[in-house]
């Protein structure tokens, strides 16, 4: 899962949106609940990674290809969120109990509350191509966000501080439902284990070494 603390540098990356085939009508005809967004994340060190965000109704999927990890989320009717973590290198999955969580953080990377705390600087375009720019001063720097409200989509995020610039930039956008469904189905055959059952499966080599495969990570 992408952490707020990972965002360190920024640059304008609304080009994807501007060059996309999405219409310019005041109303966006794209279903915001069926989206596939690919991001490039660059660190002050120069290291870059990829993050994929997929949305389909009450489900969200975040994929980190370099780490060979993915997290799927499902929003439940009682307000809880159910997470499943996928370990692509092992074709295994770990299922968590549903728990209270900010769905917006899972489904759009940027928690809705975080955006509300920022000041809107300017905006342009409309509908699917609208870009709103927000900014906020942090204790150790500045945060700038480019946002599309119709798609509920993070276009770009930049964080500047003494370490340098961390940037998350939208580099590709998928809106065809078939591709999106395939993304969610890609890991359906993984052998899954309830986390509650880990302790009863010490004989499973994968479960024994989970501590070393990125399993332990703060969820929120």
């Amino acid at each position, binding site marked *: 899962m992408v952490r707020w603390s990972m965002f360190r540098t920024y640059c304008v990356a609304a080009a994807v949106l501007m060059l996309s085939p999405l219409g310019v009508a005041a109303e966006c005809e794209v279903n915001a609940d069926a989206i596939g967004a690919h991001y490039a994340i660059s660190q002050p060190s120069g290291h870059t990674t990829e993050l994929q965000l997929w949305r389909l109704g009450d489900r969200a999927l975040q994929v980190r290809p370099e780490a060979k990890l993915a997290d799927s989320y499902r929003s439940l009717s009682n307000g809880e969120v159910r997470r499943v973590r996928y370990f692509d290198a092992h074709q295994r999955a770990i*299922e968590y109990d549903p728990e209270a969580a900010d769905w917006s953080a899972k489904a759009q990377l940027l928690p809705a509350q975080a955006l509300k705390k920022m000041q809107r600087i300017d905006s342009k375009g409309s509908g699917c191509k609208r870009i709103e720019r927000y900014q906020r001063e942090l204790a150790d720097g500045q945060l700038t966000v480019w946002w599309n409200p119709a798609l509920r989509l993070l276009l770009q995020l930049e964080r500047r501080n003494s370490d340098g610039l961390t940037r998350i930039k939208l580099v590709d956008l998928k809106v065809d439902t078939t591709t999106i469904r395939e993304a969610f189905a890609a890991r359906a055959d993984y052998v899954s284990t309830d986390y509650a059952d880990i*302790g*009863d499966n010490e004989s499973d080599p994968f479960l024994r070494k989970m501590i070393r495969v990125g399993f332990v990570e703060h969820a929120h």
Partner: protein
Amino acid sequence: MKTLTKMLAMTSVLALVGCEGEDGKDGTNAVSSSQTPAATSLTSTQLANTVNNPWYIASAQRVEDAKAQAAAIAKSAGQAKNVILFVGDGMGVSTVTAARILQGQSLGLNGEEHNLSFDKFPFAGLVKTYNVDAQTPDSAGTMTAMVTGVKTDVGVIGVDEDIVRGDCSTVSGNELTTTLELAELAGLSTGIVSTARITHATPAATYAKSADRNWEDISDMPGAAVSAGCLDIADQLVKFESLLEARYPGADIDGIEVVMGGGRRHFLPNDPAKNTSDAVSAVEGDRTDGRDLTAEWQATYPTGNYIIDQSGFNALNSEATERVFALFNESHMRYEADRNKDLAGEPSLSDMTRKAIRILDNNDKGFFLTVESGRIDHGHHAGSAYGALTETVELANAVKVALEETDPENTLIIVTADHSHVFTIAGYPKRGNPILGKVVAVGETEATKAADGLPYTTLGYTNGRGYMNLGDSETDADAAYSNPIDAGRKDLSLVNTESSGFHQEALVPLSSETHAGEDVGVYAIGPGAHLVSGTNEQNTLFHVMDYALNLIGKAEKSLP
């Protein structure tokens, strides 16, 4: 006692003085006319401080009660009509002690003097839990031992030690017969209740034979095992009647009357169209063979009741219900402390126990019921004493229900655990100190500091994920798995360690706390209960139940 010791010491001194001789000159009778005569017995006055002490009086009465109970033991085999086996998964002795104190403190007592429902049972013993191939066991091998009379390997279900775990070809010929199966053969009604998935190791051991406890549905099995003809555990549950009839041709078996627990996903196909209203996954079912076993069960038992939620449970008329198959959760049922958050609602272990007994006792021949509190174990694995102990208290409540619903003259109730956990009650806390709190010594009001200058909790774990402070609003012990492992010592000075979201410190960092290998307790009441006394191999419990019910005898009589 100190007074008695002093008196005995005085008596000894007096006796020694007397050993100088009878007339004080020749080595006999040294008592002179000026000395107090040697005491040769203790007077009631001398003992008054002892015998009038409430502790003394209560424990003396306990011995009298025990003598009466021993005299009343029904020593003939087959005196029981019903047997209920309660298994607290992971409920070691320290868990029982701590839960006792917790429940007592919740009632406004100091806690230590309180008794859980089964603490009052007249007979208790210890059970050695090791598996044939493991010093510290798992639930599969241990429950198999309890219900078959045969110790076996770790991780296998209903088969003996000649099995090779994970090798389907080694199942045939190594199957064992369980108490539930014998009860069915004998014409008794049978039931399985668990807060875990009903295909999980403990309940599965009562009805299934599997080379691996993880083969809960077909998607969990390797292709070779499926090709070789091994059935998954869920399939064996819904086909129980036909499978048992195949092993005992001509036997009249009517199938398990009560099945209640979690694990719906192992009975449904991996098709979102089959999702229930209670589903938490996008695709609830796991089965890859396209089969809906809940539908197959309903087709086999058209007068049976298949239910999935609280409303379905509430609608069950126990007097008119012939058979019930209840799957209340996609996976394990919720922790008792967390139960109110379930989407469609689910009953408590106590509720399920009451309903199960009222359905089963409609059979005049009697019944055999297994009730598992499956998530004490999970609370400990997550490093949550609060989670484990609140589950244990609920198990005690369920046992109390069983006592209310049955007659100890004809019902043997056994309460035990399959194995223990690395859970300790440590330090020198004063009497009545909150069991979930920090150690405060006798005569003190401030928490005791360890050698590192920091306070520490009474309860702790040798290994596991370690310290977490998830707050009062967190009642799901498994929330720990979303947080980093944090073993070792922490500064708990400002931490409310009694909150539901607090997880105790652990020494050795592990992704999950482990089982422990020491003996567990067994507590029994009813016909044959005396047989649990002493230190027992775990498989002995099968023979206790068999003795009480004359299971094998009745089963043999029913065979053609």
